[in-house]
């Protein structure tokens, strides 16, 4: 049997489990070793080590009232809880708790789509609703709205938004937390609050206006441990008349500077509506010379350009993005984009896909870049199925955020490539992903393993990257629980004033310290200083 949470006596733990069973029923309380293993982080960088994070049990309520019941019991016995929604936040911890011994509150059974308004282009969902669920609902009912899905699309709207994930469509929707409108939260005391206009009981604008009256409080429930969110509204994208996916290429390494500057300007002018990925056809690949260059750090532009020429002359950079809207407008946007970029010598323009909507099922199946059209899929994993590709046991994401400047992208890849190489890892090439209007995220998939020795190397690499990038002005935007303490250290202005504020709020909102202790290094008073 799993051990009780730290500080909870076995007898009290057993009593608490009986009470939890009384709330959710025997079928939905999980307290055997076998059950608890289902909540293990399959990509844990601590796999099999004493510090690996395990829950003591899991409980799966099916209603707000049951969530309240669970919270009440947790307060009574001092049980640490760890709510998850769909539990698919892999690479950022999966379903495993930040604090070992927590009881996972698995909200997957709360998977109801409570409302979709085709007229207002909004939805209201419970935590367990997945991207696939809502997508299928819209397709089945022929509702001309799009979701904005994460990629891979196996997670859900609420969890991804609360951890501040993102997607690929129009700017209004692809910052998932920004696209939410109104939430319902069970506070650690058991009280239920609704935010925004939803706090006005008869309001007809709960999913239409975010702020309500008074301070806008929603933000404190993201990446936090201040409550269990049980409903969230989201704005959905109106299905456009058409879409055009394009690729803009530039020949030389330093061309990325005007390329990104111009695309950023076009994005801010709402001429380029979608997420933009700036990748390098030259730097991607596994030939030994290329890998050596990626890991060298500081290879000159001239040397990179010579390598590109010797390797077949592929354009050094390719930017991929999509226009959505009426065909005539798209044509004008594309023409304007080409005019703006025409000053880069050797620039190339290519239309890679065009669609008019709605798509038939067969057309949906044929879409290559599904997330850009709000279609959830797991196709991302196809990259792991290439012939000869080594089986990957898992990875965690290192996700620094940089300004939308080409020279920063070059500097980042120079730096992280060398860190990888110096520590014996194959330096991966990293693209600049313009999810947000004024930054780029540069994901690095750091491999994890099923043995302590290799994971020790991984953890050292990860810590070096976190610290080194923060020192260079590129802190991360999101991080795996094993590294959340380290991550928050990077946000230590004024001797950790922000962290102290988080914990001041924690003490006020969660006086018994029961919800997600340790998540993003926010600890309740009773556990503060007790962990490494």
């Amino acid at each position: 049997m799993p051990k009780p949470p730290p500080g909870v006596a076995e007898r009290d733990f057993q009593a608490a489990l009986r009470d939890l069973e009384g709330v959710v029923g025997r079928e939905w309380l999980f307290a055997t070793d076998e059950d608890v293993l289902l909540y293990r982080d399959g990509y844990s960088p601590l796999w099999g080590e004493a510090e690996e994070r395990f829950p003591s049990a899991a409980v799966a309520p099916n209603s707000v009232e049951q969530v309240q019941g669970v919270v009440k019991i947790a307060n009574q016995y001092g049980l640490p809880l760890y709510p998850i929604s769909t539990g698919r936040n892999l690479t950022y911890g999966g379903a495993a708790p930040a604090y070992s011994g927590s009881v996972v509150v698995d909200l997957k059974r709360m998977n109801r789509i409570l409302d979709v308004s085709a007229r207002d282009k909004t939805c209201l969902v419970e935590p367990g609703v997945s991207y696939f669920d809502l997508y299928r609902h819209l397709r089945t009912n022929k509702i001309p709205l799009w979701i904005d899905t994460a990629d891979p699309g196996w997670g859900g709207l609420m969890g991804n938004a609360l951890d501040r994930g993102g997607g690929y469509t129009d700017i209004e929707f692809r910052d998932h937390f920004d696209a939410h409108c109104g939430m319902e939260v069970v506070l650690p005391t058991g009280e239920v609050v609704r935010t925004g206009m939803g706090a006005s009981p008869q309001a007809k604008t709960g999913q239409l206006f975010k702020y309500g009256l008074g301070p806008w409080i929603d933000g404190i429930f993201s990446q936090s441990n201040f409550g269990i969110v049980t409903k969230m509204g989201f704005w959905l994208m109106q299905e456009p008349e058409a879409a055009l996916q394009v690729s803009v290429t530039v020949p030389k390494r330093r061309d990325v500077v005007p390329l990104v500057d111009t695309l950023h300007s076009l994005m801010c002018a709402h001429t380029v509506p979608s997420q933009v990925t700036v990748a390098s056809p030259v730097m991607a690949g596994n030939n030994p010379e290329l890998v050596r260059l990626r890991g060298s750090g500081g290879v000159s532009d001239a040397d990179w350009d010579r390598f590109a020429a010797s390797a077949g002359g592929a354009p050094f950079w390719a930017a991929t993005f999509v226009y959505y809207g009426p065909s005539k407008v798209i044509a004008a946007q594309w023409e304007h984009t080409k005019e703006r970029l025409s000053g880069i010598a050797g620039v190339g323009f290519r239309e890679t896909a065009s669609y008019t909507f709605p798509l038939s099922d067969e057309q949906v199946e044929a879409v290559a870049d599904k997330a850009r059209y709000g279609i959830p899929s797991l196709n991302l994993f196809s990259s792991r199925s290439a012939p000869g590709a080594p089986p990957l046991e898992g990875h965690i994401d290192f996700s620094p955020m940089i300004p939308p400047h080409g020279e920063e992208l070059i500097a980042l890849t120079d730096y992280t490539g060398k860190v990888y190489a110096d520590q014996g890892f194959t330096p991966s090439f990293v693209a600049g992903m313009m999810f947000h209007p004024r930054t780029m995220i540069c994901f690095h998939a750091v491999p994890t393993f099923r043995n302590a020795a290799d994971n020790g190397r991984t953890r050292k690499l990860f810590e070096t990257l976190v610290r080194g990038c923060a020192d260079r002005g590129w802190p991360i935007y999101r991080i795996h629980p094993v590294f959340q303490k380290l991550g928050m250290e990077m946000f230590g202005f004024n001797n950790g004033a922000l962290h102290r504020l988080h914990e001041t709020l924690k003490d006020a909102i969660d006086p018994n310290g029961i919800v997600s202790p340790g998540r993003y290094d926010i600890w309740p008073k009773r556990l503060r200083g007790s962990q490494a």
Partner: protein
Amino acid sequence: MNRFPLLALVAAGFAASTAAFAQEPPFPIAAWSRTTASAEDRGTPVERGAAVFNNWCSACHSRGPQNAPGTASLQNKYQGSVPAALQDRRDLTPDLVKFFVRNGVAMMAPLRKTEVSEADLDALAAYLTQR
């Protein structure tokens, strides 16, 4: 968000919604209309298993490796000595199906009982082991 930005560029196909298979309606029993708490009890175990497969497995394991990373992975692993698509396998046993659902393998994370309930797992095993 996309975590393999370059590799994602080669991804193609869609597997979740439209498997062309007689026992799989395009969008069977979407989760929005139910909760896992009220287990599906409609149809035979095999019919219910088909719905579970479509809901939870087909995005990776439908027919056609170009559309399904799990199928592509099994093609690489077995090199055609057994069919790559799980629906075409005739050597699966209920215990084997249940093992991989609950334990995962490589990139595949386990599915919890709140995702695929024990009753749904029995049905899925029945579906994938029908002869």
